[in-house]
């Protein structure tokens, strides 16, 4: 560890000290299954993984037989001290790494991961942080992954903080963690689920399919007057739109944390 790194850690608050150190680890694919028509869920057994906070991400590095490597960042769908780490990967058109992870990888394969990463877009139970403000999660498509980790951690801790998840998704078939989300909304930790379907709704859905509107956002999020902490994750277009509306609706910009997935 360099001197610069040491002084950096010293400068951090006690809350951040609990975030584990990152490093490279060998990971073995323990299980893989189709999450949606376009995405797979990967369970990795990560040798020496120090655990991770809900909302953190990691880098995956793949090496080809001739030494060529490709590295990408993925949000982690799980949290806690376990060395079993769950990812859910969306296949990008023209992608290089995601088609391999979605279509080709199988149990027993090995890859390298670096993490856990990120100390800002994270959530920890009120018992640890003392922050009892309600939490609004807003997901666009595969942006639900780190937010699912937060909602799971909330249920796991049986945390009394009011949680609400607004999930914008193309069709009912594209919902990640569909069964798990239903289970979380039935758990004793309070979680309310709201969906916006942009291409096709379930039968009998009260609203037509279409992109989220400012009115729909206002109706489905914890009001600014309740001072929620808000986490928004999705494409850049989705995050820009939603974050601008939230500020327009009176949410304190400092209480709105955003994460976007890039174009690769």
């Amino acid at each position, binding site marked *: 560890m360099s001197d*610069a*790194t040491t*002084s*950096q*850690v010293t*400068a*951090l608050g006690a809350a*951040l000290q609990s*975030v584990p*150190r*990152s490093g*490279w680890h*060998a990971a073995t694919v323990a299980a893989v299954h189709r999450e949606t028509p376009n995405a797979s869920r990967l369970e990795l057994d990560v040798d020496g993984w120090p655990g991770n906070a809900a909302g953190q991400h990691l*880098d995956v*590095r*793949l*090496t*080809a*037989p*001739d030494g*060529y*490597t*490709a*590295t*990408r*960042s993925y949000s982690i769908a799980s949290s806690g001290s376990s060395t079993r780490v769950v990812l859910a990967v969306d296949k990008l058109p023209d992608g*290089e790494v995601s088609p*391999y992870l979605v279509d*080709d*990888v*199988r149990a027993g*394969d*090995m*890859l*390298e991961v*670096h993490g856990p*990463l*990120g*100390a*800002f*877009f994270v959530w920890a139970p009120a018992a640890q942080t003392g922050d009892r403000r309600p939490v609004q999660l807003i997901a666009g498509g595969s942006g639900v992954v780190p937010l699912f980790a937060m909602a799971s951690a909330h249920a796991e801790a049986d945390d009394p903080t009011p949680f609400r998840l607004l999930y914008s998704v193309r069709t009912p078939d594209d919902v990640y963690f569909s069964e798990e989300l239903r289970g979380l909304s039935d758990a004793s930790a309070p979680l309310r689920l709201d969906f916006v379907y942009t291409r096709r709704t379930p039968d009998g859905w009260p609203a037509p399919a279409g992109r989220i509107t400012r009115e729909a956002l206002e109706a489905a999020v914890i009001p600014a007057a309740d001072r929620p902490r808000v986490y928004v994750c999705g494409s*850049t277009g989705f*995050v*820009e739109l939603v*974050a*601008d509306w*939230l*500020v327009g609706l009176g949410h304190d*910009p*400092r209480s*709105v*944390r*955003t994460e*976007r997935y*890039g*174009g*690769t």
Partner: protein
Amino acid sequence: MSFITRGFSGRSRDRDERLPPGQTLVSDFPVLSAGPTPEVDTADWEFTIRTEAGVHRWNWDEFMALKIDDVDTDIHCVTHWSKLGTNWRGVSLDTLFEDVETEQEYVMAHSYGGYTTNVPLDELLDGKAWVAFEFDGEPLDPEHGGPARLLVPHLYFWKSAKWVHGLVMMDQDEPGFWEQNGYHIHGDPWKEERYW
């Protein structure tokens, strides 16, 4: 530690030598931001450099009257994407520091919206950094840091503070926002100084 992942072949073998390790070339312009995009009107915009001796200020008109550079450069984001041959216009930090006397060797850049990032002063001078207000011939989009952002292309792009508002000189290097939240204190893409 490095081993072959079964079944992975990857795509391109003719890797561009301008691409630092662990980076992938993109044609679009991804965004990395921790929160909402602040709305900054050039009528209210101000840029300051604060030293042990006092404060230097420019409003938008004064800033635009300074010598403007055309900058062609590659940019590298810590989230593994790079763009090559990007085109910017901006004011060199050499120009902004022309009349600034300071013994302090470190800089904290402050942005509208509260973002901060730290850079040693000698990494901002001698043609290494600008305050940029145009990208590809157009005014800089707010989501990319408009009206003006710091441009420090030899470091990972989180050092190129969007919506930059001013620089505060410091006696010692101190971590800014991402540097407190998991990113490296220095951020050289050629050394892969990504994380703590």
